[in-house]
């Protein structure tokens, strides 16, 4: 029988993978992948706790979070496109003028 702790463990593993990707990868598209994996782990947690508490609010928040993640991917990919046009590269170490 699967219980809350199983789902939370999977979510924790996904967050770990996403943070590893964010630290190690210098490729902008891969960093977007890592952010997506972290966002999905958060959604999984929301749904798992919604099921655990028997409350609908978690599902509503997960729906909002999914829509916001879609908007974030659209803007992030547009930024990657414009940075690629400027630098002819998608290595984030090359994006010198984006540093503060």
């Amino acid at each position, binding site marked *: *029988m*699967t*219980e*809350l702790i*199983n*789902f*939370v*463990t*999977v979510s*924790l*593993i*996904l967050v*770990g*993978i*996403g*943070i*590893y990707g964010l630290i*190690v*990868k*210098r*490729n902008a*598209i*891969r960093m977007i*992948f*890592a952010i*997506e*994996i972290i966002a*999905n782990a958060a959604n*999984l947690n929301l*749904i798992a706790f*919604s*099921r*655990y*508490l*028997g409350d*609908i*609010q978690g*599902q*509503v928040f*997960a729906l*909002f979070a*999914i*829509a*916001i*993640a*879609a*908007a*974030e991917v*659209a803007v992030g*990919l*547009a*930024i*990657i*496109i*414009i940075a*690629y*046009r400027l630098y*002819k590269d*998608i*290595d984030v170490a090359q994006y010198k003028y984006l540093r503060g």
Partner: protein
Amino acid sequence: MADAGFIGLSILTVGSAIFALESREIIYGAIALAISMLGIAGFFILLDSPFVAMFQIAVYVGAVAVLVIFIVMLVRTESLFSTDEDKGRRIAGLIFSLLMMVGIGVLLFSSLFSRAEFSPLMEKIVNKIGNEMLTYYSPVFILLALTLAGSIIGALSLARREDSDERAQTSTPSPQYEEKIYLDKKNEEHEQEQV
């Protein structure tokens, strides 16, 4: 202990998430990311929330993964193989993420959540979600729609090419053309004076 379906689904999800970050070609990584999102949707179905699972499939697998695959195709292929990440950073990232996982995992397994059991199944979930969205969360709903519209307009205006503006400007009347119009007008005035 977990049953076989759950274990298979978690192996699929976690494995394709790792493959999405570590695959040699980034297009396979994008497809692996889509499979990982499908695995998450499977978890949502296991957690008795099929509406969110359908939303996840429609948004992530239908929109986000396709968008990512399009971007991967638009960006030139040689620069996609820029895997010159140094070994030290890789080891540091591995150690950091493992430490974080072990730390939070120890906390979780020693807490009361490790023995928590699910509450009884909810009924009429979709009706309740619709009710909540259109009553209590209706300002959030409207704000979310505006955010999506704003982000799409922002993405379009960011990704627009600058030289299309220049092309539009060159199609406007050139100085020589304006001069010709000016001379024609003068001639007309001259003729009227003569009349």
